[in-house]
């Protein structure tokens, strides 16, 4: 990107402030790549530079999502959330704030709950991710999914995937042994519809039920 500043001290201000296209055009001269400058400029104008840059800027990542292995190539700035939603089309994981303040994007990374909007996709090479789409066993819902329906632990449903993923982790962590503990350990997941009492009931019931979650 434009922020890739070359080390060369002779680089002009214009170059530092310029875009990658300018950078490629000019740095090619500085770094004396064997390609003729005119050819490079032509390449830049045809957009070839972007295609080349895209290859260099993207990083291969191999991660398993809901049991399916994905080999993807992503820019380092792509969040796990945006990878899931925009590239893998797993839109069950929600974007509510994009800065780790609401919990709607909660997924499990190697079994631990994580705000996927605060986590870059490139950090998850080799990791196992579980999203809301991967929680049920085929047509058989996870007990907490069943409990959310039974106790009406939602209204609009937008925070629900995050609440459920967080709730499953909360139970596994052993933090769902009392209703007040659940309230404390679920406070990173905001529900603006205010379904909290029903969510707590759902989590507590599954926790008490002793089923494998």
């Amino acid at each position, binding site marked *: *990107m*434009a922020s890739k500043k070359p080390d060369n001290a002779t680089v002009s201000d214009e170059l530092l*402030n*310029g*875009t*990658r*296209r*300018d950078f490629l055009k000019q740095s090619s001269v500085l770094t004396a790549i064997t390609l003729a400058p005119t050819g490079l400029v032509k390449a830049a104008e045809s957009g070839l530079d*972007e295609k080349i840059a*895209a290859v260099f800027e993207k990083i291969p990542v191999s991660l398993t999502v809901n049991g399916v292995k994905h080999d993807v190539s992503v*820019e380092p*700035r*792509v969040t796990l959330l*945006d990878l899931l939603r*925009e590239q893998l*089309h797993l*839109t*069950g994981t*929600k*974007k*509510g*704030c994009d*800065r780790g*303040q*609401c919990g*709607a994007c909660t997924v499990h990374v190697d079994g631990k709950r994580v705000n996927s909007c605060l986590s870059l996709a490139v950090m998850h090479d080799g990791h196992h991710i579980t999203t*809301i*789409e991967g*929680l*049920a066993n085929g047509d058989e*819902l996870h007990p907490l*999914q069943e409990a*959310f*329906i039974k106790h*009406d632990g*939602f*209204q*609009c*449903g*937008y925070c629900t*995937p995050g609440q*459920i993923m967080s709730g499953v982790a909360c139970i596994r962590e052993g933090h769902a042994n009392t*209703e007040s503990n*659940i*309230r*404390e350990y*679920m*406070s990173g*997941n*905001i*529900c*603006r*519809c*205010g*379904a*909290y*009492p*029903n*969510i*707590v009931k759902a989590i507590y019931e599954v926790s008490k039920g002793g089923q494998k979650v």
Partner: protein
Amino acid sequence: MEKELKKSVIGEPMDRVDGRLKVTGAATYSAEFNIPNLTYAVLVSGTIASGTITAIDTRAAERAPGVLTIITHLNAPQLAGYQASAIAANGKPNYRVFGGDKIFFNGQPVAMVVADTFERATYAASLVKATYQKDEHKTSLEDNLANAISPSRGKDYQRGAIDAYKTAPVQVEQTYMLPTEVHSPMELHNTTAMWDGDKVTVYTKSQGVKATQQSIMNTFKLTDDKVQVNSRFVGGAFGSALRTWPHEIATVMAAKKVGRPVKLLLTREQQFTMVGYRPKTIQKIGLGATADGQLVGITHESYSQSSVFEEFTEGSNNVSRFLYASPNVTTRYKIIPLNVGAPAPMRGPGEATGAYAIESALDELSYKLNIDPIALRLKNYAENDPERNLPYSSKYLKECYSIGAEKIGWSNRSQTPGAVKEGDWLVGYGIGCGVFGAHRGRATAKIRINADGNVNIQCATADIGPGTATSMVLIASDALGMPTDKITFELGNSAFPQAGQQGGSSTVSSVGSAVHDASLALKKKLMELSGKTESDLSPGNYTDIIKQQNLPYLEITQGSQGGDEGSKYSMYSFSAHFCKVHVHSVTGQVKVVKAVAVVDAGTIINHKTAGSQMIGGVVGGIGMALTEEALFDDRYGRYINGNFADYHVPVHADVPDIEAVFIDKPDPVLNPMGTKGIGEISIIGFAPAIANAVYNATGKRVREMPITPDKLI
């Protein structure tokens, strides 16, 4: 042959018909459609509160990788239905997205970047540099009361003598402030638009697809067959999606310009400036009563903020005109135009703000009189609507008081503040009442029964969370005598028959009536076809009749609307909210430890979803009373807490178990189901219940919400 229902399903606690989709992540909200060739838009927010854009440098952004276009006021396509003049018909400045160089509020969009990925659009947006000529801005409500104007709506009101409270032996005269609150639905506002020739398809967060369709038709001068709007799942809205906002128009505009589908998500910070909020209000209440607690006069004066380019009126005074039987009532209302984004109706618009002030003042009066707050309310109970001199179509508020008092443990309350303690915690009990108009609008439903016995109903209504489809299935099930699992209900598509927006607690009343009437019309048609009488016809016959007629299906489109009930009756839902609070004697921390909401909302269609709606409103009330405040830095005219870390909506730890109780008696007038409405009444009155409980616990009256610990210690 179908199973026949032996009794009505109305009121049954039924699981949501879309529950499975919501718990599996399969419910697709409007930003979640996999659209080929999709591009991503990001809006650049302006950084001054008032002035003129002198230059906007997009050169660097244009050369950033993946950028397809950058739209600013300098190159925005002209839209046929967008007024080009600088002054609108109402004499106010004409705010149109990218419509000119004028800046009216901080955060106003100044550019839209469209690129092939979200990351590239976001980066390029950071390269857009706008420079401004700043004008002096006004963003403080308190500092600009002298600039208050009388709006064209929200007229002043007078019953009996002017300011009669001043003549009464016992008086309360106080000022109450509610800060700006932001709707903050969990789903970010978003729009995706794609053109195919002269037709556009839009996925957007909307509380009414027909209204959004109409706005786009007007702006782009298109006929209804050229504009398709979809909004099947809406991740909360609370009023913020009741209008078509500039960012939606900008997205449709951009999609046309780049010739590819465009998706825009606002950022959380942009939710604070671009999609409305409950305006900050300052309310002055004067109450006068006789020594035995009979109200002599109520005066309610309100000031609320609006933008400089629109008049937004918050009907905060309305409630004081009819909630209590006072012979003399004076209300005055003014707005203060400020350099702020446009407000919008937010859950319980007007009544939620007004009830906070009047119910707080009434509580203050109860201590002056040394009369129990419930007894004071009963003393001034309005059996008929004192504003319109009409009978209420139904009113069970007295029952709400007594049930709520019993459930909260009102008998443990002391009329002496600070007298009850539990450990280190001071204990207080509070009551606040809510009231909101019960409405029925026009709506049309299309009902189809297939030869296999399945029924499908379509209507262009919305569901922002209350469980509309579930309630409609129950209403149809009851009217047809068929089991719920044979019935599906579809919404959120502008191609479906007409319905108003999901707002004003009116959906079940309006759309439910259409579903009810369409179901009856279908039965009538089946009778006509078969020659059966009403008593002969049973759900078991439906498919036989269709097969005998050799029809693949039978379909009826039925419109429905009320009559002149509104001229004969005053129609309102009522609620009595009770809470018990703990206030820490050292830290000032307030905890709501118990909440009970008792509601007279007519017949309850589904106790499960209605209960959730009530609980949700109470949680909103907790936010209103204890946590929520959108704060401006008036030096820059800019929010300083436009995010969830700094703008505190209630979280799990803030919310106790909440009990919702329904009177569940049908309203005999408003609609065939006997419903009134729940959405607004759930929040109206809860914030004052908390404020009153905090006073009961501590003897400290906080008249500026939210009640944070610093105000108590």
